[in-house]
């Protein structure tokens, strides 16, 4: 479904991503793990069109989307839930959701989708008229995921969904992510919490200093010496 080939990203003189190769099959959960600054978020940014790659190719469903603007990539069926959630604080929960589907669904379909989202995230139904900025971190994360799902994407990119959340809320969010796959969605997950990511992922790639250094099934990585020593503290 998604293939990233020899991706390179530069911010001025700094090489944030040296070389990342990645392939995501339909219906998989793929985790991209690694330390802070390893190039995980930049990689997601390039796939979503926020960052123009310096070299390499990104192919989604057989179409080259390298360097295309984010609105085009979104309409092809890729939704990014950005790091830090970035919900619209001054807009109500309902308005946040409606913008998520505005360009993808006709009005009646969008209404039905909004109801599906409110069923999936009951907390959002309760806070429907409340401004996004007044929600807690966990509720905002739910809203950010729901907003991205409004577009009925085929691939969802999640950037650090556990960041800043209370442990109980992290479990809820990750149960939800595992549930998304059961509905046929493909998930590319960036996560600093490696143990957590490997629990729900099918396969994972480890990034270090902007390079993919290790890739394999989640089970293989969870037992590999490198991962255990560097990220799982074993």
């Amino acid at each position, binding site marked *: 479904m998604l293939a990233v080939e020899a991706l390179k990203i530069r911010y001025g003189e700094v090489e944030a991503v040296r070389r990342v190769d990645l392939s995501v099959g339909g219906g998989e959960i793929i985790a991209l793990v690694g330390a802070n600054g390893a190039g995980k978020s930049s990689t997601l940014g390039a796939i*979503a*069109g*926020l960052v123009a790659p310096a070299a390499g190719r990104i192919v989604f469903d057989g179409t080259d989307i390298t360097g295309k*603007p*984010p*609105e085009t990539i*979104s*309409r092809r069926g890729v*939704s*990014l839930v*950005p*790091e*830090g959630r*970035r919900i*619209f*604080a*001054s*807009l109500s929960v309902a*308005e*946040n959701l*409606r*913008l*998520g589907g*505005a*360009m*993808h669904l006709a009005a009646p379909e969008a209404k039905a989708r909004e109801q599906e989202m409110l069923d999936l995230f009951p907390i959002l139904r309760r806070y429907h008229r409340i401004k996004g*900025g007044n929600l807690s971190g966990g509720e905002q994360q739910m809203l950010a995921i729901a*907003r991205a799902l409004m*577009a009925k994407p085929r691939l969802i990119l999640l950037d650090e969904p556990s960041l800043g959340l209370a442990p109980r809320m992290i479990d809820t969010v990750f149960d939800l992510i595992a549930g998304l796959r059961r509905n046929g969605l493909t998930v590319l997950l960036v996560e600093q919490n490696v143990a957590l990511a490997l629990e729900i992922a099918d396969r994972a790639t480890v990034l270090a200093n902007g390079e993919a250094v290790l890739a394999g099934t989640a089970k293989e990585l969870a037992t590999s010496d490198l991962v255990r020593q560097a990220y799982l503290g074993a």
Partner: protein
Amino acid sequence: MVAQQIINAVSLGGVYALLALGLAIVFSIVGLINFAHGELMTVSGYALLASLFLGFPFPAAVLVAVACGALAAVAMERVAFRPMRGASITSLLLTSFAVSSLLKVVFQNGVSARPQAIAMPSWMTGAFSLGDFTIGVGPTISIVVSVLALIALEVFLRRSVTGTAMRAAAEDFDVVRLLGIPASRIIATAFLLSGLLAGLAAMLWVAQRASVDPLMGFTPVLKAFIAAVVGGLGSLPGAVAGGFLLGVIEVFLQATLPAAAAPYRDAIVLSGVIAVLLVRPQGLIPAVRVQRS
């Protein structure tokens, strides 16, 4: 007398509010203070002159003039600002100065540097009595138009998808694009709205003065800029509040200052602005903008 002054103050404030809103809408989306905003007024003023000259009935001429302001704003974005997308704020500011100077010269050399008289319909210059008060028709129309424009804008921003997306883009433009909403549409709409508001303001401004000239946009837009800063740059409610506040203060000083102090009116107003900004540096009603890491 007092009633008439209040009407004048609200009427002037309404024009400032429309102009300040136009500046604020563009600033909230693009981060640019459009110094060519005054020239949008000038374009509308001359479009009114031309339409009347061509024999259009007055209401039709006003519609054409306002539409020309809106179209000019969209064209300005398309020709001058879109190629500069992603450029630094300084480059954008310089571009807006260039557009402003260019249009001034076009009107000075293409038409005339001297003011051109515009005959207002007689009913607009009259007055009507309300109990013991005599109230001018012109300022009353001005207030009604400003209020209706503000309500229409509010409804657009609250109820329509594009309006909601614009409020979202003022907070976090990248995320709006991630949701599939085209950046060009948001930016073009921002300029379109600012041009519509400038066109309306131009009509109200011209109605009070019955003439147009190549520099007619300078003073009101300078005042509108001050209003937008006092209100909180990029904040739409702030722009409206700042506009009305400035109108009220100006008319109040005009009416109460002794003749000897009258030349210092603007100095006194600007001192007030400095005082406000010392106490509230983000303005009266600061804009919401998400801090990004």
